[in-house]
């Protein structure tokens, strides 16, 4: 967690663009929230049932730990939508994004319940990982 799941019409985002968007998603999430990169999962699917595409070409559904502010979420949405638009060469109204809050206590990663936002340092120390993602 977080899990960013991007559903698109078939062929809308090529592999090179996926790699760039995933890098942007990871950077943006970490910049905005201070979370470590190793928590950030960015997955791409095509013509899937979820998240529903409606009239969009791409929809990014973000499942993030609860506790982020509305300002943080608005920044995440704006910057990630811009990344998808830029790298996939899509019109501004072709990309949708939704966020959903999940309590950290509901999630399990690295063999234990996830830390609350801002309390990752002890978790990382126990896992002998650095915040650089090593």
């Amino acid at each position: 967690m977080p899990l960013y799941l991007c559903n698109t019409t078939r062929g809308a985002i090529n592999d090179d663009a996926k790699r760039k968007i995933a890098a942007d998603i990871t950077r943006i999430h970490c910049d905005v929230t201070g979370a470590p990169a190793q928590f950030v999962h960015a997955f791409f699917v095509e013509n899937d049932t979820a998240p529903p595409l409606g009239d969009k070409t791409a929809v990014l559904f973000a499942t993030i730990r609860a506790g982020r502010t509305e300002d943080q979420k608005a920044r995440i949405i704006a910057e990630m939508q811009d990344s998808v638009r830029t790298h996939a060469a899509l019109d501004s109204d072709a990309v949708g994004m939704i966020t959903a809050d999940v309590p950290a206590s509901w999630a399990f990663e690295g063999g234990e319940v996830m830390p609350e936002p801002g309390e990752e340092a002890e978790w990382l120390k126990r896992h002998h990982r650095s915040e650089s993602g090593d």
Partner: protein
Amino acid sequence: MINCNCIVQANQFSADTEMALRDKLTAFAEHAFGEPADITWRVIPKNSGFTAARPSVSSIILVSANRPLPQSERAMLLEQMCTLWASETQQSLNEVVGVISDPQA
């Protein structure tokens, strides 16, 4: 039925492993919640899964409980679920993410 959404990477598991995981998750759901699992198996295509901006080897298991869970019970069930997955797949627990959510209000 207990909704169980499994997200895995392409070519990560054999058909036999998938079948074993489905059986174990069904047994887990029956044990934990008294109902079998309704499993959705989603495969992330090749070159389409990233963790920390690198090619991902992570599996994600999202389960919707049929009742609100005390945190102590949720933590125990999360550990059981992720451990059974890691045991069957030979993955590290660092590569397994589990979520057990309460019913929506």
